[in-house]
């Protein structure tokens, strides 16, 4: 088959052209959670429609769950109401729900892949912008709003206009201390937070080829922060190996056939792209955001921008962001004091993320003024980490070890910033107010960088910090 992965999957799922010119696209997997669906189910009920494909719909509860205890009823009455509504809707329509007692609960973008629900060649929709995460498996995965959730529930289809494909190649070896998170932050830094509007991002190159599935998920996760509704990596042997034996993946003889089909979705070598950009992995440093959107970042060894050096249009937003963050133009990124550390989220709440962070904190203590939290992305991740003893490593260092959920990524549960606290966070959004306090300040970085910041009490360069600290404590 010729063309890009985007073209191949789009064509396989296109039902027809709608009168307004959009395409009616079949949705192969619909993932739902408690925040963006209750209104959709109500709209469905109002029109007396049923759920068309309950067996292609899977639910979890992630955004509102408290992470200190998941005991029901939740202390927060509204959270309990939302959980109850989801349970009722799933029961009424026969939709499988991965809730706390199931042992498979977690952030929707963490559990889809780990259960093997996410498979190459699928179209995947979810009422959540970070649905782009699932593109790591070579899928067309995109976020939708509540009215479109209603559409998918009712018809298993959405109305969508096709996207153009931008190929983003990253080649070479990442330096030690530089992670997938830094790669995507560097991409967004250069292409901008709206540079991806109208595009699907195809991530390729030797760096991506060498990445684990979890690393690819981190990259694809933040496509939306660059304005791209979808991001994907072509399926390869790494993809196939990850899926083998997963609960919802095809088994035995079916698996062989499925694997061959999966690989056939990869963009053909002669595919044409609307645009191409490339990066040299070796030039990417640990990257930290200093502002109020994910494009406002610098390498940890750089200084903050000086608005006076910028043109009119950019100057205003840089000035505004610096003022909100209470940072001075031109000061170094390293050394900014932090109050809170958050390790978790659908970007960096997987087992490999926790391992990377644990490797930094092992045998050390967080700075005395710090509050630090580790929130596994799913119950699976939590159990895996506990089996390896990572929970102990974090606890001994002074971190709180929590249950699975979105937690302080968007603070719809009790985990939040207070006042103008500064949070080193492994999540994906540093928008004003994102972590629960209207004046709270978020610095996005990799889990290893968050871990190092927690120990130092300020932003430090994870590449050099450990050795410096040992020298000083001698």
């Amino acid at each position, binding site marked *: 088959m010729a063309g890009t992965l985007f073209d191949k999957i789009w064509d*396989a*799922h*296109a*039902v027809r052209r*709608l*009168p*307004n*010119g*959009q395409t*009616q696209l*079949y949705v*192969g997997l619909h993932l739902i959670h408690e*925040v*963006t669906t209750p209104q959709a189910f*109500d709209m469905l009920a109002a029109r007396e*429609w049923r759920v068309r494909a309950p*067996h292609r719909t899977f639910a979890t509860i992630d*955004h*509102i769950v408290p992470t200190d205890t998941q005991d029901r009823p939740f202390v927060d009455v*509204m959270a309990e109401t939302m959980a109850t*509504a989801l349970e009722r809707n799933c029961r009424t329509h026969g939709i499988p729900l991965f809730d706390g007692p199931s042992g498979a609960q977690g952030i929707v973008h963490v559990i889809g892949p780990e259960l093997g629900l996410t498979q190459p060649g*699928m179209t995947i929709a979810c*009422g*959540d*912008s970070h649905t782009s995460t699932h593109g790591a498996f070579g899928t067309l995965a995109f*976020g*939708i*709003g*509540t*009215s*479109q959730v209603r*559409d998918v529930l*009712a018809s298993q289809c959405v*109305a969508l206009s096709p996207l153009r494909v931008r190929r983003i190649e990253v080649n070479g070896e990442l330096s030690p201390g530089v992670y997938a998170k830094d790669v995507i932050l560097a991409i967004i830094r250069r292409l901008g*937070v*709206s540079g991806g*509007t109208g595009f699907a991002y195809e991530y390729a190159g030797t760096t991506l080829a060498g990445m684990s599935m979890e690393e690819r998920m981190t990259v694809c996760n933040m496509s*939306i922060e660059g*304005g791209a*509704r979808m991001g994907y990596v072509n399926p390869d042997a790494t993809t196939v190996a990850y899926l083998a034996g997963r*609960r919802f993946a*095809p*088994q035995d003889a*079916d698996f062989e*056939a*499925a694997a061959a*089909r999966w690989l056939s979705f990869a963009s053909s070598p002669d595919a044409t792209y609307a645009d191409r950009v490339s990066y040299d992995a070796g030039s990417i440093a640990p990257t930290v955001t200093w502002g109020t*959107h994910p494009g406002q970042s610098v390498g940890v060894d750089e200084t903050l921008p000086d608005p006076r050096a910028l043109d009119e*249009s950019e100057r*205003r*937003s840089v000035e505004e962001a610096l003022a909100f963050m209470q940072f001075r133009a031109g000061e170094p990124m390293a050394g900014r004091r932090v109050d809170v550390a958050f390790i978790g989220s659908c970007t960096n709440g997987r087992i490999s993320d926790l391992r990377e962070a644990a490797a930094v904190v092992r045998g050390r203590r967080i700075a005395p003024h710090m509050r630090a939290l580790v929130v596994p992305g799913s119950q699976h991740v939590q159990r895996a980490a506990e089996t390896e003893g990572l929970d102990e490593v974090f606890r001994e260092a002074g971190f709180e070890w929590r249950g699975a959920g979105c937690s302080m990524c*968007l*603070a*719809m549960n009790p985990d939040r910033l207070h006042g103008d606290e500064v949070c080193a966070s492994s999540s994906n*959004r540093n*928008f*004003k*107010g994102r972590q*629960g306090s*209207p004046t709270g300040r978020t610095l996005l970085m990799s889990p290893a960088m968050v871990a190092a910041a927690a120990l130092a009490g300020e932003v430090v360069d994870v590449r050099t910090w450990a050795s410096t600290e040992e020298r000083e404590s001698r």
Partner: protein
Amino acid sequence: MASSVIERVTGRAVVLRGADIDTDRIMPARFLKAVSFEGLERHLFVDDRAAARGRGKTHPLDVPSAAGSRILVCNTNFGSGSSREHAPQALFRWGFRVILAESFAEIFAGNSLAIGLVCVTASPGNVANLMEALEQNSGASLTVDIRAETVSIAGQPDLPISLPAASRRAWLSGEWDVTGLLLEDYFEVERVEARLPYLRTTSRKA
């Protein structure tokens, strides 16, 4: 919400300056803790408005002439970030029927289309001129004409606007609430289902 034809919207406008205004700012997450969209308009830009008050300023939504406005004029990448439909829902319920900006984030524009909130774009220069004119005369009325693809302030020449062809067709035909369309001739959907092997081979382990 019944689908109806939308050709032209006239009304007073609110100017909201700033690039990359994300949906977390339009509707902070704590107000997503609800099972309906009702009453969301009360929380529209609530933190930005409080922050302005804290600095002794008045947020554009809080100036007296903002009440009853139907059009919001913004800069680039409006509605970025979270896919929460709560954001366009709150704008719509507040009374806005058109958002005119230099550019939009994609999911926001899609969500708006689904609920009858018209998103149109104009060039940076024309947006800047409009903003200035509106700020000098906050009572002025704007007309956004979707058929003619123009915007005009009372008494001044038309300026060009644009919107995706699919959205324009949807507004002018009244077919912007697409669920009904998606359910029509469902045998075509079943034909697609029949050709997708993964729908048949989904086996699961206990």
